[in-house]
């Protein structure tokens, strides 16, 4: 590891420890690291948007290639800034209406197809068989119906309906449990990554 890398990784190791110090209690080191992340991220994102979007999508078409059609999205973008004025804020609604109108028109049909029709199709189109796949699909159907019944409040949850509702809450809890386990794994992965980084830094500093 070169001296430059060693210094860079040293700063990274210091900032990692600054962030971890919050686990004990809030302190100036944590605040410094937190605000540094926010500041660097904001500056980076602003410049990225400027060079990869404003320049090729606004400046070059309008001022270099004289493609006048680009004036429309540019004006729609500019009037979004009227949100800062109470008097003129209403003008920005045209941009928002334009964006939401297009978004809704495109999204509604695709969302219905993706989230409803395809999922319904996959749920009900199960093979009538007693092999593992058939039993699994049958379980899916039963679990979906039981979960739906749990959230159906127009009928008292008594008798067979109550049993199905009870099954529904168990299905939901199993789902939450799986989600929790994977969430723990994800959070531990972040910690492990930092521990491995610190180990590598120590080796580079003293051992390598």
């Amino acid at each position, binding site marked *: 590891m070169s001296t430059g890398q060693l210094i860079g990784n040293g700063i990274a190791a210091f900032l990692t420890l600054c962030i971890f110090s919050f686990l004990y209690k809030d302190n100036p080191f944590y605040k410094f690291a937190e605000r540094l992340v926010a500041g660097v991220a904001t500056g980076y994102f602003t410049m*990225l948007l400027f060079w*990869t979007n404003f320049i090729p999508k606004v400046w070059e078409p309008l001022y270099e290639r004289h493609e006048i059609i680009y004036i429309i999205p540019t004006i729609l973008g500019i009037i979004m800034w009227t949100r800062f004025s109470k008097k003129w804020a209403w003008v920005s609604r045209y941009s928002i209406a334009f964006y939401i109108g297009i978004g809704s028109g495109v999204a509604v049909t695709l969302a219905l197809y993706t989230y409803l029709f395809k*999922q319904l199709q*996959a749920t009900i189109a199960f093979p009538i068989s007693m092999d593992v796949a058939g039993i699994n699909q049958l379980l899916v159907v039963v679990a979906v119906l039981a979960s739906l019944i749990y959230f159906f409040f127009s009928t008292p949850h008594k008798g067979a309906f109550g049993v199905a509702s009870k099954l529904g809450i168990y299905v939901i809890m199993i789902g939450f449990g799986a989600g929790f386990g994977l969430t723990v794994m*994800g959070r531990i992965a972040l*910690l*492990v990554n930092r521990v*491995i980084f610190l180990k590598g830094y120590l080796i580079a500093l003293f051992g390598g």
Partner: protein
Amino acid sequence: MNIFEKIMKVDRRWVYLAIGLAVSIPAVYELVATYILKKENTTINIPITPSPEVKKVYDFVESMKPGEHLFICVDYDPSSMAELNPMTTAIVNQAFAKDIKIIFVTLSQFGPGLVEQITSSLAAAHNKVRGEDYAFLGYRPYPAITILAMGVDFRVPFPEDYYGTPLDSLPIMDGIKNFNNLKGVIELTSGNTADFWITYGNGRYGFPLALGITGVMSANYYQYLSSDQLLGIIPGVKGAAEYEELVGFPGDGKAQMAYQVIAHAVILVFIIISNIAFFGTRKRKGGMEGGAQ
């Protein structure tokens, strides 16, 4: 205050400390074994069995012929590197080893740096040339609009690649207009761009789509496997380790598994202890209330 009540009121910082120490055990072991005991190969290997959903992604890439195009979307930021970088690295290693051409795009504002980091190191290792063997088209905001525009022509949202070269000047883009000219898309994400790819990508254009996602997200996307909207899923660091096992490339995913096993064991112990304490205190309170009656 009995033992159960004491456990229920323990300062949570002791739990943080215990987890921190538990996660440090493999690191300390490796340091001690390497530098004090002078042992070789001190990495703790955890046996890994690839799951079907991960193997489907691997098989899909494996079924591609040299020269065919794979689209990889790197939609995560440094805060998710721990989970997603290992799987990205494993997939790119597999694809480059098979001479598959890769087109990278990112819909995450912090993605460009990650793509450059991955491509620069792996392209050098596999002797791959930018523009010929792989291309990085860059970053665009608004994922839905960008995906829909790419479905028409990659040149609409990306007239130039990230480095300012017109797409028509890149040899890798010869004959590549939109998703119809690719074998498939692998989306590596830590956010809701997965939904955009499922809805506006697979839903609108019907191309084969696989996801590499963080563990937190995994439970929300398995239903798309059974509906064939996804060809496979690589869930979290466990999925990354499985993919590395399949590729035969031991990377950060497998390295993390020993740490994960110890941390999970400690968390399980905490869950059992806290549940015993919880029911113990509840029983005691119930008994006291019963006595009062």
